[in-house]
């Protein structure tokens, strides 16, 4: 029989001190991506609410002004009617005016009521949105967003790396508050934040390089030191050029000028005296799945003549030799695609075949960033099985993101 052991204060303390460490299994990168996605979603909702509130504010003010005007104008109009009985035409006109103004009043009242109702509806829907956001804290916690949305308060800098096979380029994006940095400072201070081994990519090639960004002229000058080890093989050269294009593509830059110690031109293995790179090259974004490392979007160039429909269909194709997965599931098809200026409308067939929300979210984000490469700024998805996934309201058009693969900046702002 077991003896009854009396627990003293000290034995309780000892037991508590020996309670094991329970560690978070999320990596800091995963955690950061999840937080970024939730913060983006929250910011979007707040800005929508603010816009709606402003809109209603203006509307209400106009309605109030009309009502005040009518209240002030009606008695004097009635007075005029009492004194002036000479012209029946005018009387008719006046009574029409009154009728109109009564109608107007009624209409305004209706507008007023409906705006009240709408305000109530809005406030209840915003409460709903708020509560659904808080609810989503638990249900969406496992969803990983891989894009960086445009945020007017932040600057973003992109670093690009070759994948292990040396075929394509994996960009990652760092963000800081605008007031704490300039774009140039940010691009020139990324080195301490890079963790290539952790991310399963090749070494960053531009640590010893300085970037001079002139957004007005659409030019970035990349200055290499004299002892820079330029790529010699055509594969390395390809990665080198693609990396620079991916890094500066979202800045609306047209040309990347290459200099060595301030002198124009660099000597690549197959491109002696290369002075500049034209940035216009289309690419699509699939999922890079290295054995060790997080799954990141990878930029895959396509021919200049490729259409958006061809590009989206290409997103279905896996490239196992390069540990790359297509982002559109096999059982899901891209149906009709319609374009209207910068709006792309994508009809999805077989939307019931998604294997969970993460798969749908990855597809949506991969289509969004791919659409951006083809000049679209908005995308509308039709026939998806849900109204909302991650931070996206699927009933509405969605703005294309700025870039992909958010990563935390590991150093203090310079």
């Amino acid at each position, binding site marked *: 029989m077991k003896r*009854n052991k009396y627990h003293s204060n000290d034995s*309780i303390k000892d037991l508590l001190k020996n309670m*094991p460490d329970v*560690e978070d*299994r999320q990596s800091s990168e995963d955690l950061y991506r999840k937080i970024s996605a939730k913060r983006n979603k929250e910011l979007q909702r707040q800005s929508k609410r603010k816009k709606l509130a402003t809109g209603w504010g203006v509307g209400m003010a106009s309605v109030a002004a009309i009502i005040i005007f009518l209240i002030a104008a009606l008695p004097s109009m009635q007075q005029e009617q009492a004194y002036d009985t000479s012209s029946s035409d005018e009387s008719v006109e006046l009574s029409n005016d009154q009728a109109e103004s009564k109608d107007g009043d009624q209409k305004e009242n209706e507008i007023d009521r409906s705006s009240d109702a709408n305000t109530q509806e809005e406030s209840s829907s915003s409460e709903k949105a708020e509560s659904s956001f808080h609810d989503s804290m638990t249900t969406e916690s496992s969803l990983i967003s891989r894009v960086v949305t445009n945020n007017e308060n932040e600057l973003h800098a992109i670093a690009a790396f070759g994948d292990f096979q040396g075929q394509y380029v994996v960009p990652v994006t*760092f963000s800081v*508050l605008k007031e704490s940095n300039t774009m140039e400072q940010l691009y020139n201070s990324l080195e301490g934040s890079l963790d290539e081994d952790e991310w399963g990519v090749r070494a960053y090639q531009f640590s010893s390089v300085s970037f001079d960004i002139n957004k007005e002229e659409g030019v970035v000058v990349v200055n290499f030191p004299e002892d820079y080890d330029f790529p010699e093989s055509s594969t390395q050269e390809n990665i080198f050029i693609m990396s620079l294009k991916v890094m500066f593509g979202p800045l609306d830059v047209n040309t990347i000028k290459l200099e060595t110690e301030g002198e124009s031109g660099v000597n690549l293995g197959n491109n002696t005296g290369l002075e500049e790179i034209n940035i216009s090259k289309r690419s699509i974004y699939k999922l890079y799945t290295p054995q060790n490392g997080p799954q990141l979007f990878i930029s895959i160039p396509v021919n200049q003549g490729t259409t958006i429909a061809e590009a989206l269909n290409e997103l279905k194709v896996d490239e196992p030799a390069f540990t790359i997965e297509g982002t559109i599931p096999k059982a899901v098809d891209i149906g009709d695609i319609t374009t209207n200026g910068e709006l792309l409308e994508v009809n999805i067939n077989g939307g019931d075949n998604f294997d969970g929300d993460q798969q749908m979210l990855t597809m949506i984000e991969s289509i969004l960033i791919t659409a951006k490469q083809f000049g679209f700024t908005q995308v509308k998805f039709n026939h998806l099985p849900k109204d909302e996934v991650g931070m996206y309201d699927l009933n509405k058009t969605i703005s294309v993101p700025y870039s992909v693969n958010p990563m*935390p900046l590991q150093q203090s702002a310079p």
Partner: protein
Amino acid sequence: MDSVFQDLYEKYHKDLFQFIFYMVKNREQAEDLVQEVYIKVMNSYDRFKGDSSEKTWMFSIARHVTIDFFRKQKRKRNRIMEFFDWGEHGHFIQDDQPIPEEIALQNEEIQKMYHCLERCTTDQKSVIILRYIQSMSIQETADILGMSVSKVKTTQHRGMKALQTYMNEEDEEGIKSETK
């Protein structure tokens, strides 16, 4: 903003996660809540005045987030109880949270302690976790929990007494069930 995240993560994440985990005793829930803590921290970092240390500020946010979570859980539980009309017998609903591997691998006494912690009040549990599992000072604990030092001492004393009672009760139960 990102450098803020990385800095805070490196300095406090392990302890922060540990605190939330022992409060809610569910790994997935702790992962959710720790995200919520960082969102709140990053959203208000600019307004952090440095009146308290960064550490106590983060932990007090974590404490509020877990208390909010408990409130929501309580409301949910009340709704369920009302719906099924369990009334006063609601406490018979089993707490079937999975025991994490780290605890399951420990000896029987540690596992008992893990269960007994759950029987303490939220304040007692908070104080005991911070003071004995995370080895924080009485002053740090008071700052995090928004309590006076003497309140921390009283809560700690009562919590330890309660744990002693619960642990002894658990032992009694074990002996009874063995003799049956």
